[in-house]
């Protein structure tokens, strides 16, 4: 149970002032986070419009300029990618000598953990990592994946995380897929890990 006083302050600093030569530019961006200022209705003088039509960088005017659209698409992608700076690095439960990593996400955590313990109980080496953030990935994920000879990704789907990891990091991750509306059994994952260790 968290102590309420220890919870981080997530209040939003709303815009209240003109921010560019006597005007309010709703698409100026924080240089670090690329976030836009947020002026809420009721704030005098900061009336502006947001929405689906492309906006000119800075002014927020509706823009039909092709080059601006490409620039803004990159800016939005960079804004999302930059969130990685605020994501803790992925932690690896590593064992000296392990060259197989099991990478999971979500509700498979328990079954993967049980499988890893079983493998280790057999005297074999295996590492485990579990993702909490999927977009963007933690900043060290590529480096972590590169340390292992093989990466196993158990998923209760047809291999969506494995596909992302392969696309993002050019890692030959192996999918262990199950789509039976039933959780993994530890033995299923244990078996897949042992196969990779022994190959």
């Amino acid at each position: 149970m968290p102590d309420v006083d220890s919870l981080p302050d997530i209040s939003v600093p709303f815009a209240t002032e003109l921010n560019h030569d006597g005007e309010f530019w709703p698409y100026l961006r924080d240089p670090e986070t690329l976030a836009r200022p947020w002026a809420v209705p009721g704030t005098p003088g900061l009336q502006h419009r947001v929405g689906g039509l492309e906006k000119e960088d800075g002014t927020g005017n509706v823009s039909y300029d092709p080059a601006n659209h490409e620039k803004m698409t990159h800016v939005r992608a960079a804004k999302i990618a930059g969130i990685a700076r605020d994501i803790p690095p992925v932690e690896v439960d590593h064992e000296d000598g392990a060259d197989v990593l099991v990478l999971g996400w979500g509700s498979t955590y328990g079954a993967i953990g049980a499988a890893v313990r079983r493998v280790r109980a057999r005297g074999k080496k295996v590492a485990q990592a579990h993702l909490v953030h999927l977009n963007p990935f933690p900043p060290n994920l590529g480096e972590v994946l590169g340390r292992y000879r093989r990466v196993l990704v158990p998923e209760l789907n047809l291999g969506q995380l494995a596909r992302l990891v392969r696309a993002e990091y050019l890692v030959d991750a192996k999918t262990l897929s199950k789509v039976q509306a039933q959780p993994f059994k530890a033995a299923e994952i244990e078996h897949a890990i042992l196969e990779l260790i022994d190959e």
Partner: protein
Amino acid sequence: MTDTVPPQTTKKDWSSDQEVRWCPGCGDYSILTAVQMLMPDLGVDRENTVFISGIGCAARFPYYMNTYGVHGIHGRAPAIASGLAISRPELDVWVVTGDGDALSIGGNHLIHALRRNVNLTILLFNNQIYGLTKGQYSPTSEFGKVTKSTPFGSVDFPFNPVSLALGAEATFVARTHDMDRKHMMETFRRAHDHHGGAFVEIYQNCNVFNDGAFEAITSKEARPSMLIPLEHGKPIRFGPDLEQGVMLDGQGHAAIVDVAEVGDDRILVHDERRDDPGLAFVLSRLARGPLEPTPIGVFRAVDKPTYGDEMTRQLVEAQERQGPGDLAALLRSGATWDV
């Protein structure tokens, strides 16, 4: 509500500096002008005014108002607007939508916003076609309509937006059209001043993909004999010499009659304040489409508690009863345990 008197403004103050992009000749221009001309008279501040739209030609509207604006999610403007209106009761929240956005993609959002009586002013630009996507049939296109997506004619029966809003028991329901700025402004003013969910259908000409859809009733020559003005407390009469009127028959249907033939006293007197929306619904069924004499004006205007007022009242009462909220106490109020 602010205690200060809003400064005197003009249409220009309410117009943004963005280039208006609708097809030349589109009915949306005249609706925009009517709204921009009306705003200075409403006694409200620009910063306390918000226009929210979904997707479609009409949905560009907020960009052209010098107010706060959201060009939002297809069909979901009533949901966004409901949240804003409920959490910020001091704001004036308008929704601008079209027949596709409001009645197809967002049909559910619309009826529930109206049913809940959220304090919104909803303007539905009805052009009976999907214009932005270049001419497919919409939920208000007439049966048999030939369009790009109905090459052999539509086999859908259209919504009558006024009937739909009355069916949802909206507390304010009106209809106007884009050829009459004065009528639009008066109708919008009434809708704005209504405390609760106000719904206005605007017959709007799409001169590119559905040109002339309302011409048979809205052209200057046709209006006297084809538009039936609804005025509270007055007999419902129309025609160049007010020679025609609306009468209820023994079955509860509305019929158009010759006033001289039936006598003045048998003509229905319009009562927009009837609690039961039934009679207003009957009037909304008078015309089967904009090719027959069609009522315009305010069908219904009744007072009912709004969703926002009721929610605020509950919050105040709960705090009076239990004191201000305490997150730490709430977290530890039930059975808790450490794992």
